[in-house]
């Protein structure tokens, strides 16, 4: 086992060193930060979709409280940083709109079907969950397809971009963000059963590490942690290789996106952290003395449902200007109102997804062993 762990350590370092040689120091830092995200999320078993489920089904608020702690700790540093360096750092700010709310609701539902959000799908795939891998393939296709129709969904009507710091000033925005997080946490704790209210030490550590990594991501990339943009770019790269004329689409003709499409994927900050995240989850899974048991195989229609749910997950995340990371975690921690609206809509969708999951995912029964007569 020691040899395997040394090999894993060497593989992680080789990935970072190789990225440094190929794409420079910023890319290497971002891959390393992504590996850190994967190690924390898989190694300390922190997630987003699972805690949203257990807070409803088991009256267990511990995972959700850990998320709120991580977001609050990130906001406490990110908002002053954004105020201090407005020309170098940007927040995850997007407008609240009809398409955005609908997308967040649908994302929440699909997230519970595949038991993985944006980061969760990458973590699940990297840690060897076949449902996660199939959903990831769908997510890539869906987030690319979403870019083709984003103009339509945005055109359904939206408010201007609103940030809490824009409304109440830098200090006021942070105070409002922390107060709102505390309010949500208080409501979750009040609803939870005794013994399921405050996170165990493992989740406190995970929340603190996630916050440190998210702040590093902001300082190095110049923008907050995200997932969906990178996956949509991967889909666009595949479509471009297959001959699609993406220059004719509004989204990929926009200068920032056209530049990313033309350049190496290793120049895209979100792709770099996505790659690192998946690799980090793989390393954490292989680090264990014995990997967890694989999930049950599904029936063929259920695999098709997982692929479709992954597609919907990606498409809806694009409509909603982000997933649980880009909109919920990074939106709220950088003061965007759309992060809060995303949270409310996705949580409502999540409750619908909990009801859909047993209908859509059916485990394949084991084939009985028939012994031949002697």
């Amino acid at each position, binding site marked *: 086992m020691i040899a395997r762990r040394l090999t894993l350590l060497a593989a992680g370092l080789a990935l970072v060193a190789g990225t440094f040689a190929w794409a420079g120091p910023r890319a290497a830092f971002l891959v390393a930060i992504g590996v850190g995200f994967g190690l924390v999320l898989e190694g300390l078993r922190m997630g987003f979709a699972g805690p949203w489920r257990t807070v409803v089904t088991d009256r267990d608020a511990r995972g959700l409280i850990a998320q709120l702690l991580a977001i609050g700790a990130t906001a406490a540093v990110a908002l002053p940083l954004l105020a201090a360096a407005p020309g*170098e750092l940007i927040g995850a700010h997007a407008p609240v709109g009809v398409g955005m709310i609908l997308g967040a609701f649908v994302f929440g539902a699909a997230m519970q079907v595949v038991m993985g959000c944006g980061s969760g799908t990458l973590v699940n795939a990297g840690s060897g*969950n076949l449902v996660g891998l199939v959903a990831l393939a769908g997510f890539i296709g869906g987030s690319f397809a979403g870019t083709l129709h984003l103009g339509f969904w945005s055109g359904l009507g939206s408010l201007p971009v609103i940030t809490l710091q824009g409304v109440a000033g830098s200090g006021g925005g942070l105070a409002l963000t922390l107060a709102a997080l505390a309010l949500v946490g208080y409501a979750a704790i009040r609803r939870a059963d005794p013994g399921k209210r405050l996170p165990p030490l493992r989740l406190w550590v995970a929340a603190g590490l996630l916050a440190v990594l998210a702040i590093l991501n902001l300082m190095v990339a110049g923008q907050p942690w995200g997932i969906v943009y990178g996956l949509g770019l991967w889909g666009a790269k595949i479509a471009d290789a297959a001959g699609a004329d993406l220059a004719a689409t509004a989204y990929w003709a926009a200068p920032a996106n056209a530049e990313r499409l033309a350049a190496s994927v290793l120049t895209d900050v979100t792709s770099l952290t996505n790659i690192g995240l998946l690799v980090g989850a793989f390393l954490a899974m292989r680090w264990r003395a014995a990997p967890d048991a694989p999930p049950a195989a599904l029936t063929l229609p259920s695999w098709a449902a997982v692929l479709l749910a992954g597609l919907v997950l990606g498409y809806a995340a694009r409509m909603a200007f982000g997933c649980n990371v880009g909109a919920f975690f990074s939106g709220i921690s950088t003061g965007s109102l759309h992060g809060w609206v995303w949270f409310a809509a996705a949580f409502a969708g999540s409750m619908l997804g909990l009801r859909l999951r047993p209908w859509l995912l059916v485990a394949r029964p084991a084939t009985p062993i028939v012994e031949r007569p002697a």
Partner: protein
Amino acid sequence: MTATQPAPSRPIVGFAALALVAAIVALDALRSPAIDPFTVPPPAALGSGQAPGGAHCSAG
């Protein structure tokens, strides 16, 4: 209680996920221009004096 079949083992699926990402990076490497080491951005955006690219999930 009905017995169910397990999916392929976690290491196998994990390697398949790595292979998927490696294939995407390899496909991109074949089609995109090589990165010029003399024009890569500074190690961190903070303190660089450069505006971020703006390619983020929250951008329209």
